[in-house]
């Protein structure tokens, strides 16, 4: 159903092979295919428009005209531009690669307990991701982690986080009924400090960005908790709404990074690009399953290939 960009462009450029030069019409046709491929991958339209404008300038250049297979050359231009826009680097330089890796790491550079606030729409994967990150920090960084649920809304949300705390070997703030999210926050900060925890996760209830009351709640929590990291957890299967949701959460909260869940699905994941483009925030992790080990560090190259429906773009271009 969803054709890879490479195949689309091969069609467009087939007639060209051997002719050498690209006409304005050829470029237009290629740009239309790119636009369509990105929209089918759920990249948001405003982001697609900016992207296509950028790629067009590069495409009318020398390189493509001289290329034996202009289709593959254009795929490479698109792929490289995507990698850069997703926060990756094309450079082989150690320092550049280290900088990219660092931007995707959790910042734990603060006086313990370091607070990490989890936010997002209903059902996006906040609670599960909290459990995953707790396991990750405990195993990889030998941190003492506490989880606290501020979700007073969803039935059994607190029990859910409590079970994940147990599974991941993290501490869990005991549930006290009828406390408000801000009251729980204050209690969590105190208990985490008292218990000598390195990291405190605050898992919040899901909310739509137009629910003013719930948005005010989470803003109040952030004010009290002064989180070092505030992560927006979003579904990789999100469509065009990604832009609106990312922008509104970014306006309301001191966001520091993005987590895209359900990347184990067969969605193209264009929402990642949309959210990165409107917030400028690094994508820190990808969720790859329901289980607690279903977490991956973000890799721009892999995601770019996925958005384009191409496996390994570099190998393809080398063949060309």
């Amino acid at each position: 159903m969803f054709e890879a960009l490479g195949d689309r462009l091969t069609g467009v450029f087939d007639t060209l092979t051997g002719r050498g030069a690209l006409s304005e019409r050829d470029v237009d046709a290629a740009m239309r295919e790119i636009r369509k491929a990105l929209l089918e991958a759920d990249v948001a339209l405003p982001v697609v428009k900016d992207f296509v404008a950028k790629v067009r300038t590069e495409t009318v250049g020398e390189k493509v005209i001289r290329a034996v297979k202009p289709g593959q050359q254009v795929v490479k231009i698109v792929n490289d531009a995507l990698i850069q826009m997703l926060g990756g680097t094309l450079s082989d330089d150690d320092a550049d690669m280290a900088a990219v890796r660092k931007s995707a790491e959790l910042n734990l550079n603060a006086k313990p307990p370091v607070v990490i606030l989890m936010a997002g729409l209903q059902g996006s994967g906040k609670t599960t991701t909290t459990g995953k990150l707790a396991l990750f920090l405990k195993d990889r960084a030998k941190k003492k982690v506490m989880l606290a649920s501020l979700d007073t809304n969803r039935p059994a949300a607190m029990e859910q986080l409590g079970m994940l705390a147990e599974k991941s070997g993290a501490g869990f703030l005991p549930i006290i009924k009828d406390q408000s999210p801000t009251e729980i926050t204050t209690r969590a900060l105190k208990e985490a400090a008292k218990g000598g925890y390195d990291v405190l996760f605050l898992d919040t209830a899901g909310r739509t960005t137009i629910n003013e009351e719930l948005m005010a709640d989470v803003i109040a929590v952030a004010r009290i908790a002064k989180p070092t990291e505030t992560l927006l957890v979003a579904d990789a299967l999100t469509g065009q709404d990604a832009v609106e949701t990312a922008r509104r959460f970014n306006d309301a909260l001191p966001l520091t990074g993005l987590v895209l869940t359900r990347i184990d699905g067969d969605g193209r994941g264009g929402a990642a690009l949309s959210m990165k483009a409107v917030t400028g925030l690094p994508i820190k992790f990808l969720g790859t399953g329901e289980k607690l080990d279903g977490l991956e560090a973000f890799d721009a190259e892999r995601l770019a290939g996925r958005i384009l429906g191409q496996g390994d773009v570099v190998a393809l271009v080398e063949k060309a």
Partner: protein
Amino acid sequence: RRSTTRMSDQMAATFNQRTLDTAALEDLEDILIMADLGTDVATKVCANLAADKFDKTVTDLEIKVALAETISDIMTPLETPFVLGLARPQVILFVGVNGSGKTTTLGKIAKRFGDQGQKVLICAADTFRAAAVEQLTVWGERAGAPVMSGKPGADAASLVYDAMNRARDEDYDILMIDTAGRLQNRTELMDELAKIIRVIEKTDPSAPHHSVLVLDATVGQNALLQVEAFKQTANVSGLIMTKLDGTAKGGVLVALSDKYKLPIHFIGIGEGIDDLETFSAPVFAAALSGVADAVSRK
């Protein structure tokens, strides 16, 4: 209609009095794409509009009405109330990807049937997710229906088998089965769902009487693959779209209607037990196209 105000604002900004020319149609197509209709369906809807309005000078409201009509025409045949058949117990199965709103929606519908005097049994066949049973138990209490559950990690299909027998033996009118969220490309999980369905069919060949796919309004083009796969494995008989109270417009539902022609029963508009509305094609179309706002502003 909260969910679609932004789209309507864009319409107002784009179409004040103007000729419906190619540029105007492109703008219109953009707006539809931004509502997740997808490029093909957006192009088709625009072409339909252009067929009788091209090059005419039209007003903002005229174009909204025409757009609403086009969308409504696609969806009206699918506007299908959720009707119980005669067989007892009626078995209703809820399927969908993770976090789409299955459990919540099941709770909302259980309450409606309970209010109508139906005797409802709920089966917690999500034996996987942490606290899934506890969550559904709360919904069962709210709806006044008992919830049957197994041990964490238990075999979902054998629990469903027990629930089928209990529903029959204890004369329940309705058995509602909540399943774990699963992505449609995860073969092992789809196989588990197929097994659940086999068990249901074995006990009552006419069941499940409803197999409902629950979709999240924020979902993009992947919804097409979701419908395709769940239709194949779970023989989906109808759709429910949740979370239309947020900023997402759920326009992919138009694309789904165009392609799969599955009945649409309800929309979810919040987390409360009453936040469920019967699907109405003209209302959905009016909301998506902005007619609803234009009219209410007058």
